[in-house]
């Protein structure tokens, strides 16, 4: 058993175990915790080869991209994108984008790496305090191979994964796959509560901000997250923009409320990437009030001045304007007039972030208010 306060300590512990065993290659199954810790990047810097074995995660690794979804890491790629990545990296036919062919090619390319690896690493979906059991729910069989083929098995477990008793595990196992993929259970659900006769096992329990989050009255329930991805699948923003656009380990609605706990300044704009429609909270199987926490984070970040100064000034001005209907209507009419007649350089410059990556829409000839007055308003 090892205990890691933070990501750096986690990575050092894992490297220490590998070094003690003279291990040079590590096969890995999907684990959001190791993504959070930047394990792969760290291992590259100390000369350990890390091979992701999950199909989607492997596609992302071979393409030098981070996973874009907790359950489906390469969900943003089309089969032709995968064919291109595999043709360049594992030598498949670039013209063949048949999904069966591509999956089979990855199986055949990964199997020898699994057999030759010095160590295997997995994450953990749930751990049980009562029995010391920890388990992983998986479909491809790669986590099972990672845990059962190499002599050395390392498992990284976030401390929030621990549940009290075995009888509680059934509830979570049933929830996870239903919420993630709509299937009654994953193809494989394995549990270790002791060593393999022929193996050696190390467990790294990781805090990395979790115990501190437990003390945040408004936000601690985000620790209930079981990483099913249901909130991402229902989110209108995530569905359009994709997980990579969040620029953080955790994307989607759950990412909006977890990422700022790691770095408030870096992720200060994430809680604003939401329409607050509440769909995430509706589908969340563990009942996290995600959209309410998104809103609460906005307040916290503004109070702590983590949002840009220009934005705060603009929002203050907007607040004044919006509280005076007559002034607002005069302002809108003036702005529409101005947009229609001002030279481009006045509109498209550094001060207007909304004109930075796109054309500002054409101003309407008439505001809705004046149209309503003319067509539906009371004739006086």
């Amino acid at each position, binding site marked *: 058993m090892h205990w890691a306060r933070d990501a750096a300590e986690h990575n050092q512990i894992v490297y220490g175990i590998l070094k003690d065993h003279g291990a040079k290659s590590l096969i890995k199954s999907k684990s959001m915790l190791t993504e959070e810790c930047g394990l792969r990047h760290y291992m590259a810097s100390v000369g350990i080869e890390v091979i992701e074995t999950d199909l989607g995660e492997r596609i992302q690794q071979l393409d030098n991209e981070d996973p874009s979804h907790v359950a489906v890491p390469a969900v943003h790629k089309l089969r032709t994108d995968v064919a291109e990545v595999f043709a360049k990296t594992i030598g498949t036919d670039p013209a063949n984008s048949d999904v069966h062919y591509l999956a089979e090619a990855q199986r055949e390319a990964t199997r020898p790496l699994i057999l030759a690896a010095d160590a295997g690493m997995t994450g953990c979906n749930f751990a049980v305090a009562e029995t010391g059991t920890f388990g992983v729910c998986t479909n491809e069989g790669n986590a099972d191979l990672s845990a059962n*083929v190499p002599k050395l098995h390392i498992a990284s477990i976030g401390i929030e994964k621990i549940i009290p008793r075995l009888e509680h595990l059934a509830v979570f196992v049933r929830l996870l796959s239903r919420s993630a993929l709509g299937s009654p259970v994953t193809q494989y659900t394995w549990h270790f509560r002791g060593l393999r006769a022929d193996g050696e096992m190390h467990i790294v329990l990781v805090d990395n901000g979790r115990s501190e989050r437990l003390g945040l009255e408004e936000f601690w329930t985000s620790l209930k997250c079981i990483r099913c991805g249901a909130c991402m699948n229902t989110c209108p923003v995530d569905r359009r923009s994709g997980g990579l656009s969040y620029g953080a380990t955790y994307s989607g609605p759950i990412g909006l409320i977890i990422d700022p706990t790691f770095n408030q300044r870096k992720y200060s704009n994430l809680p604003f990437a939401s329409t607050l429609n509440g769909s995430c909270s509706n589908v969340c199987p563990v009942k996290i009030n995600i959209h309410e926490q998104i809103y609460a984070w906005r307040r916290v970040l503004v109070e702590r001045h983590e949002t840009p100064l220009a934005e705060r000034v603009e929002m203050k001005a907007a607040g004044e304007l919006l509280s005076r209907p007559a002034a607002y209507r005069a302002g809108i009419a003036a702005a529409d007039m101005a947009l229609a007649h001002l030279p481009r350089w006045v509109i498209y410059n550094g001060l207007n972030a909304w004109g930075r990556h796109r054309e500002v829409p054409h101003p309407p000839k008439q505001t809705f208010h004046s149209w309503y007055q003319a067509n539906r308003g009371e004739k006086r």
Partner: protein
Amino acid sequence: MSSREDILSSVRANLPRLERPLPTVPMFDVNPPASLLSTFKESLHHMGGMFLDPPASGDPLAPVRAKLADAKVVCSTVPEIAGNRDIAGVSKPQDLADVDFAIVRASFGVAETGSVLLNDADLQVNAVAYLAQHLIVLLDPADIVVNLHHPYRRREFRDRHYASFHTGPSATADIEGVLIHGAQGVRLLSVLPLARAVDSPAR
């Protein structure tokens, strides 16, 4: 202070002050299906597994023998079928990489999901259930439980070091959501209902 003490004291300091008694989980098994075996069969099919119907008469293992007819390397951990790769002689999991068919007996099955539970005693070498190209599982119809709440009250989860639910073969839908059976573990999983021999009691 050690990292362990650091983390534990931080958890204690930050623990929400809530009255939350430990919940007792019901078994959710009122109105069980009339036949656990036929529910199991349906669930297994749903997850991409194959249910081998036992023949009406003659050799109950005939469906298994038919599958093994052209297999080169067969590894069996059950007394009913002899393989040609002795698992007792396997010194490391990698030795099982060329196995075409593995044959094992499940501790029990789960009707709700079509899962079979394989533990480290059933498998002898855990990796055999993942490295083999195909897996054949013998399941005593008397060993089927209603749903996933029952297994976690059984002794396999307290006695064994390893216990794994297998529900159909390995699968992936990581490319464009196209479901593929036979991802990185076994390509096919077949289950034959067959009572345990009298001299091999339930573990």
